[in-house]
């Protein structure tokens, strides 16, 4: 895709002496859904906030529709933000408890389309509520009257009311029960079909896999792997990505296949044959935990947890290189991985 919507270059964010986002580069095309995964503390949310200029980046550029958001004057930034919206993790905390749902969703319209009549605004809010699967009658109610999943829909409706080009979703399904999670993911799939671009931040790899076109993997402030979604899950290259995938607890395969279709629903097809075996989780490839990064140290930030580290990893930080078409990885040994030297678990 050539239609670049967002171009992030060499973005760096410092918290005091700590670099939390370190030289991040990526593009996001119109209509594309990109997943951003990594452990807590890897800088995912900080990156999102820096893109929106909710916090100040130390260096780099964030071009949105050709304009550098980090350098443009406040008035221009405000205008750009109309096309660039965010939905936060905690659905209840991100809604004002004293505003009705209708007022909350209408507020962006009041700011950006002050000429709109109250009736037209009400109409738009009602349409948007229906689009996210709520009834337009709920607009007079308050956030506490809704469940977590419903509040998340309200947050999405508020972000969507201005028809943004890009929606940033920061862990929006993390606090939801599994039966509700699917509803929110399906809503995003609908928005995707309508041509919206999404940056989907999540630590839930299974959800990322079902939703995203491409995935960015972040470790201690750096992108260590960028790949089309299928390639990332089928042949992850960076040892960190492989450790993340190996750590996901597996459902026994039989679960999906054996779950009988409820009467009146089509039976699921194409599932692997039921084996009934309970999978034991694969060997965890990354012992230890994310450590605070010593910035004076050179070399690869992952080397202390990496089972494949070489002496060169101590001295030189591997650059992010294209290892296959559209598949980038920052690892000195990525070609060996690609050639199947380390057998995939």
């Amino acid at each position, binding site marked *: 895709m050539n239609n670049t919507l967002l171009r992030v270059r060499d973005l760096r964010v410092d918290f005091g002496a700590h670099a939390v986002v370190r030289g991040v580069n990526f593009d996001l095309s119109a209509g594309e859904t990109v997943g951003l995964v990594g*452990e*807590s503390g890897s800088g995912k949310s900080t990156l999102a906030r820096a893109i929106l200029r909710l916090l100040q980046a130390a260096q780099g550029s964030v071009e949105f529709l050709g304009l550098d958001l980090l350098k443009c004057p406040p008035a221009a930034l405000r205008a750009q933000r109309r096309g660039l919206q965010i939905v936060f993790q905690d659905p209840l905390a991100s809604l004002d408890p004293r505003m009705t749902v209708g007022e909350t969703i209408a507020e962006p319209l009041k700011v950006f389309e002050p000429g709109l009549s109250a009736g037209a605004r009400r109409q738009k809010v009602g349409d948007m509520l229906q689009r996210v699967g709520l009834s337009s009658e709920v607009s007079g109610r308050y956030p506490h009257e809704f*469940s*977590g999943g419903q509040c998340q829909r309200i947050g999405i409706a508020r972000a969507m009311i201005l028809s943004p080009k890009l929606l940033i979703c920061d862990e929006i399904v993390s606090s939801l*029960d*599994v*039966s*509700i*999670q*699917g*509803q929110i*993911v*399906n809503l995003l*799939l609908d928005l995707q079909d309508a041509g919206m671009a999404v940056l989907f931040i999540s*630590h*839930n*790899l*299974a*959800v990322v*896999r*079902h939703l995203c076109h491409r995935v960015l993997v972040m470790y201690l402030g750096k992108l260590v792997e960028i790949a089309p*979604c*299928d390639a990332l*899950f089928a042949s992850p290259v960076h040892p960190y990505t492989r*450790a*993340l*995938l*190996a*750590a*996901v*607890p*597996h*459902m*026994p*395969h*039989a*679960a*999906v296949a*054996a*779950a*009988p279709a*409820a*009467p*009146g*629903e089509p039976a*699921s097809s*194409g*599932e*692997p044959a*039921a084996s*009934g075996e*309970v*999978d*034991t*989780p694969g060997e*965890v490839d*990354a*012992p230890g*935990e*994310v450590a605070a990064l010593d910035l004076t140290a050179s070399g690869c930030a992952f080397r202390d947890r990496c089972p494949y580290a070489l002496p060169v990893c101590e001295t030189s930080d591997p650059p992010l290189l294209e290892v296959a078409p559209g598949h980038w990885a920052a690892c000195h040994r990525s070609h060996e991985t690609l050639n199947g030297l380390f057998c995939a678990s």
Partner: protein
Amino acid sequence: MTATLSVDRLRVSFSHRTGSIDAVDRVSLEIAPSECVGIVGESGSGKTQIFMAAMGLLPRNAQVSGSVRFAGNELLALDAPALNRVRGSKLTMIFQDPMTSLTPHLKIGTQLAEVMVAHLGVSWKDARSFAGRMLERVHVPEPQRRLNQYPHELSGGMRQRVMIAMSLLCEPSLVIADEPTTALDVTIQAQIIELLRAVRGEFGMALVLISHDLAVVAGLADRILVMYAGNVVENSIAAELFRHPRHPYTAELLKCMPSVSGPRLARLPTLAGQPPRPGELLEACPFAPRCSRAADRCRIERPQLSGSPASQVACHFPLTA
């Protein structure tokens, strides 16, 4: 063989301005010695409240009826001093958030040693050295140094290891782990699950693993209880539950779990509707409003848990294998 924990017709309700609501509705279950039982359910299903009742940790506005027997003692009848002799020693609990379950102003070593001084009457010196050895057994690196650290100096995964060590100090016969990995990253979660598996083998205690995530429970539990709206709706051998879920809710829950393997789906399966508000459906099957198999009988008569020891289900029209 007598059960380690035996819960009989336990009811937990919370009084409220406008009346009282049942969080746990006449639940019966048994945990055998050295068995690992997974308790699975969505938020509000009552899975935690059963064990908060057993531990005497419910808030003041809770009313409890029924029976919870642990090693022959009726826990619900014990007064605080008698309960304190049991909980924290033979019956222990690990919570979701290891930061809030450790005291922030006491050193790790003090908190661990205190358990043994209080329950076993050993000296502080002996307790501290034993605490260091226990940290080593749960694979905390540099255990001696950790004893002198405060909880905030440890990562979330390390704090959870400390909590696990604390739960094991007095050779418990039952450890209750309530969402022990929910607050942790996926790589750390895998480490903690492995650790629970290892200590179970080493200490031989029974383990209750409460989780909203079937996949977390899948690798560890011998038996799984599925809870819905304050009721146990299915109680089956783990492998059996995954192979042949019998309650429609269990089957729906399994379908809703997105996977990192298998085909990518155009849409994720979802479960329409909401769980009933507590107290809403007293006589009906609580799942009936969301169930595609529900018939008239389900709306007037609450199904009871029944079946073989390998697989029990509370459903008038269970799924068949």
